[in-house]
């Protein structure tokens, strides 16, 4: 009954978003200010539970003296705070001091009908990245590294497109943008499920045909990578991969504190997908020059495509991100990504996606103008 009363009270919450269920928390010294929020929160009874659809649009102003290149918000639901948290991140921004930009949070919560005290959703500022790679924020969800890596990819891809423009003019730039759009369209879509520990609900027939077995990883080694891939494997069964583990060696001159690998899976028909990333999660992970360590996870991953389970035959690993002990981040260069496997499975970067969208919505001239801003 209390839940129903709570739901009824929330029904009329269109327009200005009430603090009753969404609370935006910005620190006093935040480089961004919240000018306003609009949106809606619609509860729907689903048996004994209450489903809450939250659609909030924020208008945010850059009140710092630097240009902002990315903002990452942390979204925490009161009901799932013990095991669930989310982030909404806008990369590839270029917001000058005093300028405003919109951010949108579209969330869905399923919760017991017992109404708890306080806001249902808390939104906090986890990170702001500036043009000069300086950072502000609580960084609880590794926003600094993630945003720095994204910005490095953005710089890499802008430089590449600028070179294309300089060498081949607007027609060459248009071709490059069309290739980005085609890559996005041709990207094989994979549905994935992650489960802590045990098994996911895998496909029984596939599991019967292919019982769990250890499969060695193939690896793609990039010439400029600071990390060398040594030996890796995962337990495979049907459309399920469990406990991936790979030994890595630091071949750079600096200590490394984080390594992230990409895993590409090949199915029985030879089709390839970017399956997942495999990060080093140990906070104490540290790899001195010449040192080696294992990057591993104990959890289970399950894959399907177009509603059908993907029969995993092979997995291939590559280094996708490295963070040095001084906070600098390495990402693969364009030559490394120009690979027959990766060009089919890797999505365009966020910056490539932004510029391609600009081309579709406006024109190639808009893309040229945009590149000139950086």
């Amino acid at each position, binding site marked *: 009954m209390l839940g129903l009363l709570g739901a009824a009270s929330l029904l009329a919450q269109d327009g200005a978003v009430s603090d009753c269920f969404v609370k935006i928390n910005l620190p006093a010294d935040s480089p961004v200010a919240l000018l306003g929020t609009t949106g809606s929160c619609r509860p729907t009874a689903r048996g004994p539970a209450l489903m809450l659809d939250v659609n909030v649009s924020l208008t945010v102003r850059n009140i710092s003296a630097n240009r902002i290149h990315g903002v990452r918000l942390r*979204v925490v639901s009161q009901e799932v705070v013990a095991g*669930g948290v*989310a*982030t909404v991140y806008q990369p590839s921004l270029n917001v000058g001091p005093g300028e405003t930009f919109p951010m949108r949070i579209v969330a869905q919560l*399923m919760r017991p009908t017992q109404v708890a005290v306080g806001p249902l959703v808390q939104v906090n500022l986890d990170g702001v990245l500036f043009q000069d790679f300086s950072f502000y924020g609580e960084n609880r969800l590794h926003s600094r590294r993630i945003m720095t890596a994204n910005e490095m990819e953005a710089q890499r891809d802008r430089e590449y497109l600028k070179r294309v423009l300089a060498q081949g003019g607007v027609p060459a730039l248009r071709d490059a943008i069309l290739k980005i759009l085609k890559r996005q369209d041709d990207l094989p879509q994979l549905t994935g499920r992650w489960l802590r*520990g045990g098994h996911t609900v895998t496909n029984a027939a596939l*599991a019967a045909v292919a019982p769990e077995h250890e499969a060695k990883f193939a690896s793609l080694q990039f010439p400029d990578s600071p990390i060398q891939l040594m030996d890796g494997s995962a337990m495979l*069964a049907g459309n399920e991969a469990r406990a991936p583990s790979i030994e890595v060696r630091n071949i750079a001159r600096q200590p490394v504190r984080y390594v992230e690998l990409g895993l590409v899976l090949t199915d029985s028909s030879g089709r390839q997908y970017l399956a997942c990333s495999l990060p080093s999660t140990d906070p104490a992970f540290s790899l001195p020059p010449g040192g080696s360590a294992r990057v591993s996870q104990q*959890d289970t991953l399950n894959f399907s495509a177009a509603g059908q389970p993907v029969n995993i035959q092979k997995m291939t690993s590559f280094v996708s991100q490295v963070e040095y002990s001084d906070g600098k981040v390495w990402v693969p260069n364009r030559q490394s990504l120009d690979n027959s496997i990766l060009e089919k499975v890797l999505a365009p970067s966020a910056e490539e996606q932004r510029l391609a*969208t600009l081309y579709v919505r406006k024109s190639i001239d808009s893309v040229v103008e945009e590149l000139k801003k950086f």
Partner: protein
Amino acid sequence: MRHPNQATLALHAGGDLGRFARWRTTRHLAQCGRCREEAAAFEDVRRVLPELTEMPDVPWNRLAAEIKANIRLGVAAGECVRAAEPPRRESLLFNAGRAAVAFASIVVLVVTGMVLEHPAPTLARQGPLVENTRYGIQVVQPGGQTLGLMNAGAQKVTYLMDARGSMEARYVDPETGYVTINTVYAQ
């Protein structure tokens, strides 16, 4: 000779039959000693009934229990003395060979089902589940609490799962026009 049933005899004893039925029953009783005795027994009961209403504190529950017990006893006794059913005759449509084939088919079906289903490691979920759906990404707790971030109507969405328990969705928000990267974590 066709005898009147028990109800007719009881009604006759109480004088409750219609005129024609009473004439016919009286005529039968004049000729049938067994039915005459039955009707007399009913008349005796009728005489006793008014006295029953005067009996103080009749233990109706105990009586009901005894009646139920007697009924069960009767049913059990009936089962004991029931003659065994005659053996089913074999016919062209139903014989031992066909029964064996049908049984073997069922066994094959069950074994096939077990082979396909039994090795599936469909263990009960103890921890959170992270997944991408048609509309976004979500983390689902074992209790059913769900936190999801929706794709906000975006057409082309790129998903990437992280083996440590997070899922990322990247798309261009159709409303703001900005690239947005949503991530849910099962921490």
